[in-house]
């Protein structure tokens, strides 16, 4: 389906989006540039307030209409700039070319419509199918997402299903029209670990079978390590580091990422004290202005970090970092990154 050559499936260029609060506009994400390649898993990882969900919603123009808006940049899907598209045109893209899975299936599914009807609706919105055809397809989809008794579940309501089953239904709906890209925002956060493992395995197998690209948004670095080909690390509304999953975990560059990786409690270690990052993620209304947004919490911050805005710098092999330690000219060489391997 993708065009020949090296065109990206999804390309975001210098995107800014934010919210109007009390008459003022506050950008929640800024300077966002990224690419998603066909058939690859790209993970966006960040803490709450990093802007990762705003980014996911902006891509499909799903920000709240009353105060959210995209103010700058381009979002290219197969080369076409979605920022210029009308609502009607976007409705044809959503669901058909790009599927969406949200964190909390109970709020994303309609409580008074049966599972089967909801999936059929998703199908028939985009494809001219008879009732019988869409019913057969729906049951097949339910089977594909690992639901053991699809005929029965077809007639059930969301509240009759467990959390894991509901998430499977969401996934069935999202892949119904065979999208090239599936965007999943914290799809396993509300689930138990054992169910999380099942859902991740399902994502992986569907993604591989269908050659679909997956943009997975999560706060969980374990999930990232398990799933990602490419990783995008966000902090305070900006991308601070991006690269291949192995380099992200074994040669982290940004002091934020280096510290973040130390935070995960590991079962094979014992702790006298837990590594922590002082301070808090800045809120939308109190974003550090001017310099690096992580500088106030950064153990390696230099004077210029508070004055000078770091740009994304390529450290080789498409491993990009937004940090003055790596931008050349003046940095003392800084950290060697690999020190948190075991």
């Amino acid at each position, binding site marked *: 389906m993708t065009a020949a050559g090296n065109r990206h499936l999804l390309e975001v260029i210098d995107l800014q989006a934010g919210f109007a609060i009390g008459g003022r506009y506050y950008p929640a994400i800024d300077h966002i540039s990224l690419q998603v390649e066909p058939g690859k898993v790209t993970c966006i990882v960040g*803490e*709450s*307030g990093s802007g990762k969900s705003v980014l996911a919603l902006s891509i499909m123009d799903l920000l709240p209409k009353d105060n959210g808006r995209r103010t700058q940049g381009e979002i290219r899907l197969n080369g076409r700039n979605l920022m210029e598209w009308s609502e009607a045109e976007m409705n044809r893209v959503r669901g058909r070319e790009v599927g969406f899975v949200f964190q909390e299936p109970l709020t994303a599914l309609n409580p008074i419509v049966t599972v089967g009807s909801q999936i059929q609706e998703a199908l028939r919105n985009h494809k001219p199918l008879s009732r019988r055809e869409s019913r057969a397809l729906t049951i097949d989809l339910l089977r594909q997402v690992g639901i053991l008794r699809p005929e029965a579940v077809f007639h059930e309501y969301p509240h009759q299903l*467990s*959390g*894991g*089953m509901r998430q499977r239904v969401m996934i069935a709906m999202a892949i119904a029209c065979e999208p090239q890209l599936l965007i999943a925002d914290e799809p396993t956060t509300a689930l*138990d*670990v*054992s*169910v*999380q*493992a*099942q859902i*991740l*395995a399902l994502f992986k197998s569907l993604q591989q079978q269908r050659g679909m690209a997956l943009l997975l948004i999560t*706060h*969980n*670095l*374990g*999930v*990232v*390590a*398990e799933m*990602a080909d490419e990783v995008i690390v966000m902090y305070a509304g900006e991308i601070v580091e991006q690269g291949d*999953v*192995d380099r992200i*975990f*074994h040669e982290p560059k940004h002091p934020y990422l280096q*510290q*973040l*990786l130390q*935070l*995960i*409690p*590991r*079962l*094979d270690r*014992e*702790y006298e*004290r*837990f*590594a*922590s*990052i*002082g301070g*808090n*993620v800045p809120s939308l209304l109190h974003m550090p202005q001017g310099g690096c947004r992580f500088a106030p919490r950064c153990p390696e911050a230099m004077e210029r970090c508070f004055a000078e805005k770091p740009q994304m710098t390529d450290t080789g092999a498409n491993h990009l970092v937004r940090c003055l330690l790596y931008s050349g000219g003046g940095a003392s060489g800084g950290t060697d990154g690999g020190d948190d391997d075991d």
Partner: protein
Amino acid sequence: MTEREPPLLEVRSLTKEYPLIGAFRKRMGTIRALDDFSLAVRQGETVGLVGESGSGKSTAGRVIARLVEATSGSIVFQNRDITNATGAKLRGWRRDLQMIFQDPDTSLNPKLRVGDIVSEPVRNYTRLSGRQAQTLAAELLLRVGLSADACAKYPHEFSGGQKQRIGIARALALNPKLIVADEPVSALDMSVQAQVLNLMRDLQQESGLSYLFISHDLSIVHAISDRIGVMYAGRLIEWADKRSLYRTPLHPYTQQLIAAIPVPDPRLRANRIVPQDEPPGPAPRMSGCAFRARCGFAKPACAEIVPSLKPAAADHQVACHLYD
């Protein structure tokens, strides 16, 4: 802190049943949220309780704190049986045990100033002048790493991690001996989780507190606890020293639970054993082992007899017929 010293808290065979109500308020049977649950907490230690949703871990905490009444069983605290304590006796016990809750947004009264929230437990027991209460609140807030001027503010003026510190300050107000912490860091960001865990550990070292630390997250429970109990369908199915639990998990469920945790290293991406089924929802009790349907090693006995917790190694007990 030797084995011989009597434990601070000892609960024996606690059971909590709820009626299962069907259509037209018809009673369909009972659900055992907590079933034959026994455990001991020593002075100065942290006992972790881990389990998935519906495992009964929160019910265990609430029954121990006497927030809900046990159906049967006993709770003994420093050799006093407080299972059915009422009146003054119950009030006395409540000074010794405090709770920290998961969500500081629902456990801190939004209409009260932080100073009043933090000093309220003491004001319930002793008459304090306004100034005494303020001094006390300021001291407590300093202990949890907040500044004294937080007293005059309202909860919404604080971040999630700071609110959880306020909850901890309130729990410390009466100098309790045991704190039941139910998912205390689950609502917090990773970087803030560690700050709160460090605080809890520092407070323990200062004052010899004990914690019953309840969480769904085995990595966090493992990091903070000395001994860990694993719960499944209302029962304690494994109980061990934390090293032993991680190195040699015995119960097939514990093994699955550990295997299901994503490892934060892409080079260790393994073909993990993915459990086939989901944890059970509330349902009337069935015979035998509740885990047998999801267990790869189930044998006929598992359908007949409920396995009870038996010693399998030093500091390690398991409830599984594989080790009979």
